[in-house]
């Protein structure tokens, strides 16, 4: 089945130690998104790629970076994780075509910062 895959599902990192979360998709969608979701809060969009074009949200901290080497893969890099960055990180994809679109979300990576 076509899907959005996130690895790992659970990630533990130390305060200040860089960490990379990965997302892959078999849907061949041209848009990929990264969201941060903290406990009992709604998902918050960090940035998205439309093909190779990177779109950063205005309030996304510089500590968060992203890479999209090809259509299928997208990475979230947290350069110096703080305790406040502990959250679920969700990757999503969508196909820009026509009026109706929907975003397909992966299962998320739960990041713990110690």
């Amino acid at each position: 089945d076509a899907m959005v895959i996130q690895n790992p599902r659970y990630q533990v990192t130390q305060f200040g130690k860089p960490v990379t979360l990965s997302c892959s998709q078999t849907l061949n969608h041209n848009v990929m998104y990264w969201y941060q979701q903290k406990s009992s809060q709604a998902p918050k969009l960090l940035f998205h790629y439309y093909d190779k074009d990177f779109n950063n949200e205005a309030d996304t901290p510089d500590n968060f970076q992203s890479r999209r080497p090809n259509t299928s893969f997208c990475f979230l890099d947290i350069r110096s994780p703080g305790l406040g960055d502990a959250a679920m990180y969700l990757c999503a994809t969508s196909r820009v075509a026509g009026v109706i679109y929907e975003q397909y979300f992966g299962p998320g990576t739960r990041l713990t910062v110690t």
Partner: protein
Amino acid sequence: LAKTTQPISMDSYEGQEVNITCSHNNIATNDYITWYQQFPSQGPRFIIQGYKTKVTNEVASLFIPADRKSSTLSLPRVSLSDTAVYYCLVGDVWSGNTGKLIFGQGTTLQVKP
């Protein structure tokens, strides 16, 4: 992007119909209304989307009045497995737009036996 307002929580019983209303007073002409469902420790899942009047699929119905300032998600005969957070989103989904989603607070639906 239009701001949405939903009830924070709702309770229901198995077999009942549940209606969750979302207010979006500043909806723009090009905006569509979309609802997502999220179970704990999972990513959100698309439920339904509409522009005006009524839309129905195998999961839910979406009612949108003529002024489009609100919408109601209707879940027929809910079961325990429908316990989840339901998000109402409003945004421009015309071709060429990357469809940025801004999630509001969502409504936590608790279905009881």
